């Protein structure tokens, strides 16, 4: 059977009578295993790389949370005596939080769960959304709850 031309219909017909194991044995010598050998990566290495990648992502998340927390505390402390929304919004720490983008949304919502606070502008800027209805404008508790509900509906 070695060196047979399987594209030949006559041969295909002949081989259809063979059992699967017989076809396997017959075709084994035709099969080029060099690609598999060259590209084979031991599973131990793959697992190690996956763990390493996971650890890097976790470290990055931890760093982001730390940075967010520092900025949030700075913003809170340095704007606590301000009423001007413009001044509250443009505070550098607040702008840096907005610059974090979507990654900051869950962090902000976690803060809102702890305490109703003036995070609405940051959430609005980052998400482009506004779940605050006209009738609750200025009601900090109700506005916070509206955003938390938005978070629940959007998988946060």
């Amino acid at each position: 059977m070695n060196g047979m031309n399987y594209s030949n219909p006559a041969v295909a017909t002949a081989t259809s009578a063979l059992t699967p194991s017989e076809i396997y044995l017959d075709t084994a010598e035709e099969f080029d295993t060099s690609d598999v050998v060259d590209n084979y990566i031991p599973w131990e290495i793959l697992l190690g790389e996956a763990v390493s990648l996971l650890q890097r992502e976790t470290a990055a998340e931890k760093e982001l949370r730390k940075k967010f927390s520092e900025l949030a505390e700075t913003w809170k402390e340095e704007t606590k005596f301000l009423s001007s929304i413009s001044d509250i919004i443009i505070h550098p720490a607040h702008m840096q939080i907005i610059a974090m983008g979507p990654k900051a949304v869950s962090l902000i919502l976690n803060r809102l769960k702890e305490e109703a606070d003036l995070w609405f502008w940051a959430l609005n800027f980052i998400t482009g959304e506004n779940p605050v209805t006209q009738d609750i404008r200025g009601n900090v508790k109700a506005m916070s709850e509206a955003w938390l509900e938005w978070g629940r509906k959007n998988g946060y």
Partner: protein
Amino acid sequence: MVIDKTGDLSGRFPHLKRSNYRICSPESKQYNCISWAAGWTDVFCWPNNLSFWPLTYPCEDTEDAFVKFFAMLGYKPCENENQEKEVEKIALYTQGNRVKHAARQLKNGKWTSKLGSSFDIEHELKDLEGDKYGKVVLYLRRPIQAS
């Protein structure tokens, strides 16, 4: 700058002397200086799309916008901060033509201010002038309302 937990605000308001003010409430984010001047404690007021502000009023932090806002409550511009019988007064602080703060006069002649999202204090009017709130530039008055 860190606030001394004993309540010394002089680091934030240089003209505010410890002997001349007292803290009168716990901290609250539910209302701000404008709300407090208007007599409210359950809403945050500011000309902004997410704060309480009448839809038809100018959405800008100018003197005119706040004069119109307080006119809704019966206040009209007046000459000075001098206490008058049966009259309530509000003072507006501005910086660079932008309103930053409002204070309301008390019956004892002193003034009460909600400091942003923090607590409210009883103080002398000019003691809050400075980098944060600017200067007192406008006074408003109305007959004392029946409580």
